């Protein structure tokens, strides 16, 4: 009788271990990751954008604004980010370039990702100077966009 009880207790613990360990492991892994398996792609928004990887000014340019699109979403391979305003700038002058980041590829028009909460006080046709972060790698929501954001120290867009 005693042996039977022990056996039962042993078997029960084995059963618990067999079920709980995998379930809890999977649960922990899922909870760790901000992108959950059941999420649609649209729900990933801004998860990557919250990464504090914008810190440095890498590019200062001047140009004429030819378009302003509000709430424009940009995509990466596994993420996307919605800029409050995406400004298209016709370049007239490159003021400063951080070494190793910007390489002139005969670009005449670039996009400026304006990431402050308030709407930018800019007008189409006006000349502006823009200081921000330029990311020249592919497959990021910020690729090939001059980002002006609170996280980029000293970034701005100001009229000339």
């Amino acid at each position: 009788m005693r042996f039977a009880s022990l056996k039962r207790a042993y078997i029960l613990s084995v059963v618990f271990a067999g079920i709980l360990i995998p379930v809890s492991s999977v649960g922990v892994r899922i909870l760790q990751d901000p992108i959950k398996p059941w999420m649609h792609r649209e729900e990933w928004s801004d998860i990557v954008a919250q990464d504090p990887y914008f810190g440095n000014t890498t590019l200062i340019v001047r140009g004429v604004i030819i378009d302003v699109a509000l709430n424009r979403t940009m995509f990466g391979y596994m993420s996307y980010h919605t800029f409050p305003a995406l400004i298209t700038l016709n370049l007239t002058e490159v003021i400063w370039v951080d070494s190793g980041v910007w390489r002139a590829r005969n670009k005449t028009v670039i996009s400026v990702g304006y990431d402050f909460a308030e709407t930018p006080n800019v007008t189409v046709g006006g000349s502006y100077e823009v200081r921000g972060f330029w990311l020249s790698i592919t497959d990021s929501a910020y690729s090939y966009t001059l980002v002006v954001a609170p996280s980029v120290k000293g970034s701005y867009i100001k009229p000339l």
Partner: protein
Amino acid sequence: MKKVLLASVFLLGLLSITPMAQANQVIGSGDNEMDNVTKQYGLAQPTESIPKLSQELVLDDSLSSDEPFVIEEYTTTSNQTFPVRHEEPDASFNDANSFQFDHSGDAFLPDMNSTSPERQSADPGFTTDSHTSEPILGPIDHHYIKALPYWTKEGHWFPKTDYSQLRYQVNFGTYLGVANFRAYVKVQSDQDTIPRYLRFYFDGGKVGNDKVIYAGTNEATFEMSIWWGGTHTLTVEIFYGGYKDYGWKLALMEVYSPAWHPPPRGEQSYEDYTWHYRRDLETEFFRKTPYSRLEFDVILGPSSYAYIKIDRHNDEYTRYFWIYVDGVKKNGDDDLTPLSKLFYLGSYTRGSLHKLRLEIYYADYKDYGWKLDLKFKVYYSSLFVEVDYMNATDHNHKPDQVSISNLITDYYRLHGAQNLAFIIDDAITPEITSLSWNQHESLYQNRFDHKGQYGWKYMVVGHYGLSDQIGYVFEDPPDVPNDTMIFIAAQRIADELPYYWLQGVRYEKWMRTVIMHEVGHTVGIGIWNPNEVYCPQPYSVMAFFATPGSATEDYQEYDWEHWSLRSMP
């Protein structure tokens, strides 16, 4: 009995977690070392650098390409002062003019570049015959479908004979009842400028009416209703075809389900079914004649090869097989059918057009005696990717040749005239778990053995890279060609894998997807506005990540629109 039951429950529990655990341990220690550096691009941090080369470099100098001799020949015959920016070849490059052939096969796209009013009509499935004004069914919106294998090469010549036929074998699968299929055929005239009849046969029975074809390019579609699926013979015939040699050539043939409708252009759509609508041509029969020949226009270049596989169908004897380029025999008399063999064709001006003839003797014994596997490939040395990988004591990120790089190479050879070779090179040790921007640059400057050499790209397969990204290409790294350096965050892929395991995503599949995506960027495959416009078809490697999608497939492929953008060296 209870014990057995309980043991089974325990085992099932273990089994359910094992794949996920395995997925997480594929290449890494399992620790998610997401420190601040991983989260930051680390720009302008001059104190960061990779350790000195002499202390850390472990050379795995096996150059484990499947054809190392190709590399040797290429590098020894190449001018080492090739321009750094491969997109703008220097005029001194001895065969730079051949860049007109960058997009092998694209001239034969059925409708992508057409701007005719018919193409602009409300229903993109209709156009008209330019000579008869009769409606032609079938122009396909190729933007969202997989690129067509390069099975007609630059044109497949009809033989000079009265009833000139090309005969293919196609497997239509297995299904209940009847299904409709459409064959789209595009033929072009060359030496023969007289109008002829174009006919199409299904297992010997004529399909539809005769089509009159004229000098120039002709398109036609033929509708078939097929019961139960199965393997069938499709024959394209030109009558009268006995007037001149090289009178007509088949530019393209595609068999597909006409029930497919493309999603509206520009929409972010998940039309999954569109990816699998086509029936591949599997084999082509040699004709019953003493010297039976299949002849193609092909693009050749430095170190050109042909992989040929010929299978027996009705002929029970072995026969001689010869392969010719521009009438010059390229093999001896000891190649006998059936065979599966790689033939060296020689070195030619990069991207030059030639005639490739496959010949069997004696083939007049039985009809349908021999058949050519249409996965045959003709390619020349073009694009090389030097691969360095991170190496730690308990794991490494060396991409497996069999399950990863060879399959990508196979795709490039099957879908174009230019070869892609991965050269697994250095193991970088100790591992840098999170590469900063400057470390990328340092690796490029110090470890890229073929820096500045024409046609070479550099790929580092590592742990984590910039931010959380899985893979990326540097648009403009300093002092180097555009789009030359690739980084693949293999550990990031392994970390994400458990979440998508049940949806069919596997490490090798995802790696192939990401590598093809990034390598594609280095040869101009990509649409930018200003950010990347990902393909809305999730099965394309140029789509953003989705399941089901490319990372759940056994064979990764480009969509036709992106593939046609490539500019190979």
